């Protein structure tokens, strides 16, 4: 068994909090540059220029890309031949890392302790953590801080099997249309189909972790991603909803086997600040 110290998790998580909020990946920068080439609306072009300049300023001056530094969402793949040394659970270690990262990194604390009485926890904890046990002795941590504005524009629908592929397309496109300017377009659209009510929602979030524009490995779903992307961009919402050609930078679809009676679908929207970082310990 390989020992992984809680302290290591805490320090790595704290570093990831700052990294994800200051530096966006090349996949996002490339997607925004391509969008600028493709956009026809003058106001839309100006928005895209501001977004690219914003990424430069964030990187050079270490200012968070967006003031909403998000709910701290983690996907952990824990190698079964590794064990966590030290006090407390894995979630305790991750929360300690978030506390350290958000405080020392001057990131915004956006979490309230109770959804109804709404008093801020003061340190952006607790995180949302999904863990799977995998072969090996390595620990892979993916961190994807999620902003509230785009998260609010997300939905699950329990479609009927007879709704078919058209049902999924209509659900996603109509949902993006109704969201309009609210989730800060250009957006990334995470779609999931199959599983249960809960599984489909998590998978839609996982779809957002894929590098922007990397297609689903199944050609059928890769085609469907492009078909939905075209329909979304034909809505005319454009950058920030001011009208234009580029409403979405990418559509990513994930699937899971479904019950004979069910065809759940979920759409989880991310703004253009598509933050996700990965570390292997």
């Amino acid at each position, binding site marked *: 068994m390989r020992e992984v110290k809680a302290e290591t998790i805490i320090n790595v998580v704290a570093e990831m909090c700052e990294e994800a909020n200051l530096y966006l990946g090349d996949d996002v920068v490339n997607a925004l540059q391509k969008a600028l080439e493709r956009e*026809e609306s003058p*106001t839309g072009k100006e928005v895209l220029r501001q977004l690219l300049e914003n990424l430069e300023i964030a990187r050079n001056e270490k200012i*968070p*890309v967006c003031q909403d530094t998000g709910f701290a969402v983690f996907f952990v793949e824990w190698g079964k031949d590794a064990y966590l040394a030290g006090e407390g659970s894995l979630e305790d270690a991750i929360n300690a890392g978030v506390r350290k990262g958000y405080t020392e990194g*001057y990131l915004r604390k956006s979490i309230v302790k109770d959804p109804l009485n709404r008093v801020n926890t003061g340190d952006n904890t607790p995180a949302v953590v999904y863990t799977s046990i995998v072969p090996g002795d390595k620990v892979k941590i993916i961190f994807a801080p999620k902003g509230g504005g785009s998260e609010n524009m997300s939905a699950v629908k329990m479609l009927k099997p007879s709704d078919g592929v058209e049902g999924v397309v209509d659900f996603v496109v109509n949902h993006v249309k109704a969201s309009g300017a609210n989730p800060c377009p250009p957006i990334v659209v995470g779609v999931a189909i199959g599983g249960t009510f809960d599984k489909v929602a998590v998978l839609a979030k996982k779809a957002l972790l894929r590098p922007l524009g990397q297609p689903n490995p199944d050609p059928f779903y890769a085609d469907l991603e492009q078909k939905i992307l075209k329909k979304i961009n*034909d809505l*005319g919402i454009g950058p*920030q909803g001011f009208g234009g050609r580029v409403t979405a930078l990418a559509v990513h679809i994930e699937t899971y086997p479904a019950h004979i009676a069910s065809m759940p679908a979920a759409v989880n929207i991310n703004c253009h600040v598509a933050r996700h970082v990965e570390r292997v310990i």
Partner: protein
Amino acid sequence: MEIKRLSAPLSDNDVLQLKAGDNVLISGVIYTARDAAHKKMAELIKAGQPLPIDLKGQIIYYVGPTPAKPGQAIGSAGPTTSGRMDAYTPLILEHGLKACIGKGFRNAAVKEALQKFKGVYLAAVGGAGALLSKRVLKSEVVAYPELGAEAIYRLEVKDFPATVINDAYGNDLYEEGVKAYAR
């Protein structure tokens, strides 16, 4: 692209020359407020009590910045979703507010109040928090410090970029812009 310069606070005349789709650069003093501060101000108005700031001619920016590092005027400071303030905005406009800056749709009651009280709704680029922070020269808390990022701040801004979404004539860029590019 034509850009109009605005000096805050605003007069009725400033507001009436603006049309949906105009790009503006704002300089001067503006105030921040979001969900919790709006709720508190609406409660004070309803109770007939004085507000912590004089709203006459003012611009309110819907923002909850990241904490400023030493030496910075403000942290990352992009707009938050405006629709959450819809319940309070007509009342705030009635008490003298001339403009608000955020992002996303407003409801019918807000659009009506903008026409009735001669106001405009502007959008800043959501997710451009680092860029927008550079246009803020100074920030200080003027009310509700206990709300942290949600407190009311007085900001001195220079060339703060925004786009007119809803003007005082009932026009809506979100509707018109989408119509122009939908196919």
